[in-house]
């Protein structure tokens, strides 16, 4: 069930109505668990069992881990748990890629081996909830948190529908304590939660699906025929689409959770106003980048083992981060490019990072634009259907290459106008929050903005598109 569906509107109204009833807190939590499982079962009911199995296994392993004192036993339990969680993820997500790569390597060696492709359906959200169970087990192992005593709370943590399918990746230390006392949103919280949901839907349905996606699709479907103009337009459109799509989903999730009295951490903070790539990763998919930092980069040694090792750790983290996004070497290339950017930035910063003139606003503005342009180039690997298309697109983006027009002038104007508003808006809001910016506006202005978004949603036509991050 997607947030941008009528079914979800009815589902949400019923679940919220039940949550507002004067019932015991335990009954309300059970209501949320049943609703979350129903939400998940809307795609593929059998995978509910997988989610439940993951909850049961990791809950009891964590309790066992917590009780055990001998380090060797603790390590063994952690390894068993990680093998199970990551093994399940690897089986469903990467079996096809591994087999294909193996077949290609054999072909390179002159052996013609044709494997039967595994006919597996990727369980929705498995990448997200696997990372949540891993963070829980690792935190318990590190004695940062204790194993949570309530199975109901743990099941809700893993399955809570606002973050289940496409994040934000929630940390146990953030969520589980919220399950202790009754959460019932105040009127103001529900109102603000609904505002966030409306803004998220507007971003997804109008900006991503109606304006950006048609242009990105038309170019990338015929990537090998695209000239410089269309390659840039298609890539800029996709950079907007992926942001509006994913940030819109996260905002809907945060808003929906708020309506039930739960707080989820922000997942985006005006990323296209980032100055530099480390700043970009502080603002883009925050829950993933902090997860990778805490559970991969730091355990690898972070930046404490010399420069060379720091660069290697950065590259490994970004390459694996890329692979997390999808079972394709294109995502690895995307992560690798970001890894190169980060290492390059680190090198340059160590030499020239302290110069005062770098802090002046025109320079900052220029650097933000440069960062955005270089980020756009990485999106080519993310969106292209194969390496040949990606390389062609980058080539024509770098070298002028006139060809027949794919994108009409009107569509091009719409994409550029929305992108300009996006970049300017993010630049002016980069050091504040949406909450703070909204609190400075008169109510009638907010009311008119909400009215505009509601009307646009009512009048929008177009193809229904799944949220991009559902595929991960």
């Amino acid at each position: 069930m997607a947030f941008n569906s009528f079914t979800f509107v009815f589902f949400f109204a019923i679940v919220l109505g039940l949550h507002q009833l004067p019932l015991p807190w335990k009954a309300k939590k059970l209501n949320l668990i049943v609703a979350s499982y129903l939400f998940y079962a809307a795609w593929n009911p059998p995978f509910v069992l997988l989610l439940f199995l993951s909850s049961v296994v990791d809950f009891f392993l964590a309790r066992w881990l917590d009780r055990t004192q001998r380090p060797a036993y603790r390590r063994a339990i952690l390894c068993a748990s990680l093998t199970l969680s990551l093994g399940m993820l690897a089986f469903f997500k990467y079996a096809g890629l591994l087999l294909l790569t193996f077949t290609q390597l054999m072909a390179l060696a002159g052996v013609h081996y044709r494997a039967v492709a595994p006919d597996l359906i990727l369980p929705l959200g498995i990448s997200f909830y696997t990372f949540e169970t891993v963070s829980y087990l690792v935190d318990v192992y590190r004695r940062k948190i204790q194993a949570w005593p309530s199975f109901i709370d743990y099941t809700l943590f893993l399955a809570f529908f606002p973050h289940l399918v496409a994040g934000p990746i929630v940390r146990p230390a953030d969520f589980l304590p919220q399950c202790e006392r009754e959460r019932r949103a105040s009127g103001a919280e529900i109102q603000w939660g609904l505002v966030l949901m409306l803004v998220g839907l507007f971003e997804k349905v109008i900006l991503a699906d109606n304006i950006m996606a048609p242009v990105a699709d038309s170019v990338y479907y015929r990537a090998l025929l695209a000239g410089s103009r269309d390659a840039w337009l298609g890539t800029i459109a996709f950079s907007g689409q992926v942001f509006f799509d994913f940030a819109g989903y996260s905002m809907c999730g945060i808003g929906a959770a708020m309506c039930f009295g739960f707080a989820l951490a922000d997942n985006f903070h005006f990323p296209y106003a980032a100055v530099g790539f480390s700043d970009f990763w502080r603002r883009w998919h925050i829950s993933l980048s902090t997860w990778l930092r805490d559970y991969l980069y730091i355990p690898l040694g972070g930046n404490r083992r010399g420069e060379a090792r720091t660069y290697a750790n950065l590259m490994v983290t970004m390459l694996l981060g890329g692979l997390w996004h999808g079972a394709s070497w294109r995502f690895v290339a995307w992560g690798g490019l970001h890894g190169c950017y980060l290492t390059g930035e680190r090198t340059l910063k160590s030499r020239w990072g302290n110069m005062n003139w770098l802090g002046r606003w025109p320079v900052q503005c220029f650097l933000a634009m440069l960062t955005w342009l270089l980020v756009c180039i990485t999106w080519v690997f993310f969106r292209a259907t194969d390496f040949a298309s990606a390389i062609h697109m980058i080539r024509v983006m770098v070298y002028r290459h006139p060809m027949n027009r794919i994108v009409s002038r009107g569509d091009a104007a719409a994409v550029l106008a929305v992108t300009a508003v996006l970049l300017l808006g993010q630049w002016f809001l980069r050091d504040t929050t949406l909450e703070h910016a909204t609190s400075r506006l008169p109510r009638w202005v907010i009311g008119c903005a909400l009215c505009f978004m509601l009307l646009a949603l009512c009048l929008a036509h177009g193809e229904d598109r799944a949220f991009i991050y559902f595929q991960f």
Partner: protein
Amino acid sequence: MLSSISNFEPATTAPVPKRRPAPSLTSACEVDRGLPRHARSAGPADRVPREMGRAWIIALIGTLAILAALEFNCRRHGLRPMVHDDQQLWGLARDSMHRDDPDQIALVGTSRGHNDLDPKVFSHEMGGAPVAQLAIEGATGLLVLDELSRDEHFRGLLVFDLVPWGVFGDMTHQDATERTFVESHLHVSWVTPIETRIRIALQLAFAFGQMSLRDFVQDRFTHRPPNWSQPYIIEPDRSAGVHWSLATPDQLKWPQHYAIASTPGVPPTLRQENLQALESMIERIQARGGRVVLVSLPSTGIVGEVEHARWPRDRFWDVLAAQTKAVTFNWMDDPRLSKFNCPDGSHLDMRDQAEFTRLVVEDLREKLRTRQLNP
């Protein structure tokens, strides 16, 4: 220039309280000293800017008032509520097909089959057999034919209206819309029919749903008067038709432009591989007791002339008809059908649809009976 990238400190000029962004990937040392790990919040209350009740009231009253005015205006100009012909509606028609029913009829193909054949009349003339209208506007129908040929539960009659450029042209160029329709049906969830029914109910309740936000905005920018005509009709069972008397000149001329624009200099040659691909799909259906009829529907005026010049019948259609194991029917074979005119060159008017369908079914019944007697 590149050296400046390394400066990633946030600007410090904003006069408002700042929220600390999460520490970056490269700031592991900071993290290890115990600074906040990521943006955390104890509860939602600290994230609510202020009470939004009044803003919501303004928004809801404004939205309802504008939508009511819009609805009134749409109805005043003669627009009536109608369903949208999208992948969900197509999926509903596809799902409505009876499994393993030899009487089930599927109409597959292009906009011609969609607008020229009336599924209700077709069903009536075939003795009440269930008919699913699966033809798609702007598509060739080949992906749908392929999908049905792979569905072991389809054992009925498939009527495939083919256009020459679809079957004799470049078959590797498959329509994106058709692919979306077929793929969305293959990956349908149990919630989809519920969602589609809610949508249909809403689409049939409000006429403003016929207005497109994109067209509305474009009209404002180009100072073009709004187009209130509604020539294309679509029913919840995907029956479709065109009232050509309501169409704009652009709508009437579009197929002619398309036909002329898609006529490059080099004349096409018949590709045997296309016929083989088509035949393999037909054979899959016939192997489990199903029947396939290949139908050529009318094109007249400039479109007809261009089509007949580019894809002459004796070099394309007749070769296909001689080779295929499917029953074939060309509208030119029945003189009674020559009286029908396509106002845009490619599609009949709605008022001719019922009679045209009746005559076509009569011919098809005869052809199928002959095939049964002489297999």
